[in-house]
């Protein structure tokens, strides 16, 4: 992948999206990020496939896991939480941490990125419900604007030409987040 070209593409799409939505408003960062990353990863082929699925209610996961599964997950991802909690506390921690670290939900990962990076997982557990609720409540529907989709589609087409290496997911995430922060910083000036 040519990272400079990719960086230029990210800057371009941010320029377009920045005119449509207020990127400074907090919840937009994870939303924009997950949108961009999704399209990088899946491309148009997946989007078309998803559009072809008959419209209907979606399935949901079985979130109630066995004690053994919960403990195994916490031992792998949050040993300190496992050690310091009773059964009820472990289940509560699991319900917050599993979507973030286990399913790697792009929206939640971006929302709790700082805490995940710094290992402050107890903060994720304690503030999970409030922060997710606040973030969801504040999000209007910027993607209802056709210009939003046009910008993302153009970005996907251009990104596809760069043959992104998906094994470098973290690197791509970091680059996008860095450019978003840079964009916001420049807009402040």
């Amino acid at each position, binding site marked *: 992948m040519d990272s400079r070209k990719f960086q230029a593409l990210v800057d371009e799409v941010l320029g377009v999206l920045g005119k449509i939505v207020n990127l400074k408003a907090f919840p937009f960062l994870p*939303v924009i990020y997950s*949108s961009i990353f999704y399209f990088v990863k899946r491309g148009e082929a997946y989007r078309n496939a998803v559009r072809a699925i008959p419209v209907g*209610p979606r399935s949901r996961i079985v979130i109630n*896991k066995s004690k*053994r599964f919960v403990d195994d997950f916490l031992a792998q991802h949050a040993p300190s939480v496992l050690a310091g909690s009773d059964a009820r506390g472990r289940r509560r921690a699991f319900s917050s941490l599993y979507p973030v670290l*286990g*399913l790697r939900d792009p929206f939640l990962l971006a929302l709790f990125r700082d805490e995940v990076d710094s290992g402050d997982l107890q903060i994720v557990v304690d503030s999970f419900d409030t922060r997710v609720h606040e973030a*969801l409540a504040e999000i209007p529907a910027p*993607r209802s604007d056709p210009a939003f989709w046009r910008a993302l589609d153009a970005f996907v087409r251009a990104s596809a030409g760069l043959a992104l290496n998906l*094994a470098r997911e973290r690197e791509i995430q970091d680059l996008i987040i860095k450019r978003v922060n840079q964009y916001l910083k420049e807009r402040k000036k």
Partner: protein
Amino acid sequence: MSRRPLVVLALVVLGLAGCATHRLETAKTHYVRAVELADRMDRGGAAAEFSRARDEAAKIAGSHAGDAQAWLIKGQAEIELGEFEEARRSFASARAAGADLGDGWERVAQLLGVASVYEAMEMPDDAAMLCETAMKTAKKECPEMFEPAAARWVNLLVAEDASSEDPKARAKQLAGLEKKVRDLVEETPGSGTLRYLLSQVEVHLEDFAEGWGQAVLARELGLPTEELLRDNDNSLLFCYRQLIESGRTEYDARQAAWAKRWGWPDATHAPWMAESK
């Protein structure tokens, strides 16, 4: 009578129809986008788009009471938003407006709505019973609602509550659930979602070989959302680790073979797990 007023009237009527058609298209677009966003686990975007779909559809449904499609979209968006009672009313209106629906849609929405009330009241057994009825109704009368109802039913019954303290009672309850889910799988062997649900029950029963096997089949048959796929992968790998820890080393080669078939970078990492911790 001059023809001009008729022409004006015709234009007004056509304009209104055009406006309603445009609104209906907008509502559908929001709904399709919401589904797309939900499938890729973007819950913020999905919630916003489902709300827009519901609101746009409500505008047409309110002004053009005969618009069955608008009521239908409104009801489906409400299901996704967990507004089951409103969904029931929307499906009833869709049917009254001529939509080709049985009353199953209404009844399933109503059952799921009442189930969520029982769930909130911490009465999971009653909620599960209602979800089971919703699932059976959906299977016969509105297949689109079958898998979501089945997932809610299984999720409620595998939950560990105070009654789970009695291991015998718990084992009996899970064994009963396993039999019912297995029957569903036998009726629809090609459903990846049902295989996933069976795998989840097997994990609770600590039958890790069966849990692993059903998760493999679920992956092979296909799962409708990214979230389900990831959860299934996690269960599959959990079962694999338990099997290896218990000395079932033959699963090393089996896991490696499937991982290779799916294009995983190694036996224990799906591509979506690539980001470092």
